[in-house]
């Protein structure tokens, strides 16, 4: 496993959402809680962003135009450059639907968009800490 980066952050998150304001709000909330944050505004930008940023966890919006997050999660779960990185689906679908989507896509988990910033941070930390465990 990679060591923590020299600045001792909580870890690096790639946030993918088609809405610029959502991206900015999430970025600021997470940076305030010690995370390093990279952003991408569409699923198509993800492969490059993953190679450039080497994130510890990916927070992925589900309902995006062109390529939905659940499809993208399925692809990421299969590719060698990304399959070790936990993907957390970010959506306001209800919990039962999200539980099913997590199972179907190989994502690590989900967090609802109505979650407050503290819960979001804890969920991401939880998935980073347990990444790669059986």
């Amino acid at each position: 496993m990679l060591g923590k980066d020299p600045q001792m952050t909580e870890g690096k998150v790639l946030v993918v959402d088609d809405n610029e304001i959502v991206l900015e709000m999430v970025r600021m909330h997470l940076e305030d809680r010690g995370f390093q944050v990279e952003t991408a505004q569409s699923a198509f930008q993800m492969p490059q962003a993953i190679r450039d940023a080497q994130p510890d966890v990916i927070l992925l919006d589900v309902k995006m135009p062109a390529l939905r997050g659940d499809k993208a999660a399925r692809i990421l779960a299969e590719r060698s450059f990304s399959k070790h990185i936990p993907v957390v689906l970010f959506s306001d679908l209800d919990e039962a639907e999200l539980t099913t989507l997590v199972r179907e896509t190989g994502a690590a988990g989900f967090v609802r968009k109505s979650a407050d910033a503290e819960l979001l941070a804890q969920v991401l930390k939880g998935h980073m800490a347990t990444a790669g465990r059986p």
Partner: protein
Amino acid sequence: MSDPAGSRPRVLVAEDNPVSRMILQGQLAAMGFDVDTAENGVEAVEASARNRYAAIFLDCQMPEMDGFEAARRIRVREGDGDRTPIIAVTATGAEDDFRAAGMDAGISKPVSSDDLDAVLGRYVESRRAAAEPAAAKGLFSLRRIGERRGSAALVRLAKLCLRQIPERLDSLRLAVEESNARRVEEDAHFVKGTARSIGADDFASRLDELERSGKADDLEEAGSRLAAVTDEYERLERDLRALLAEHEDAGDGK
């Protein structure tokens, strides 16, 4: 282990999933609790016999012994003595038999801080004051950004909102006129994301209703709900402009 008199109140989290356990543990620690953890019902029953907890969180589905059985055993041991608040943690929130097992309340995973505040405020003595209704929540998240990041960040985001939202509302109006239900759903969903992220909860609720109309292909209903969305946006726009004026002044002073 001794009763932690005078120190932080102690709670127990029993959950077999390590991610869910860490999440809840982290949230409770951030709220000022000392947190013990257990990985199944057997460990939870044992820990509850050794310590006096302010509250016990029991995941309903655990190996060895599930949360229901653990709650029953804890209640049997307590007998007529002090009754520890037991909170059921469920995957769906739909399991209603937790009361029959002697649990006091149920919350669903992942647990929001609001739900935690509500349930702890109700059952844990030391949290009662903290659970007083929060002040006006309008634009709560955006205000918070202003407090933590300064006026420039808030001004930039508020301006972004004042540009993005009206554009999408125009697109929504056109979609309703053209009877394009799919685009009604998509546009309403998009703006709802913005509304939710800045803490404009009433606006987000109206947009959620409109999104549902689009999804259900009910364009008549979408038309009337669009009016409610437009009204709510007028209020939001006033609030955003007021906030902007307040912070642009503050920005000048820096």
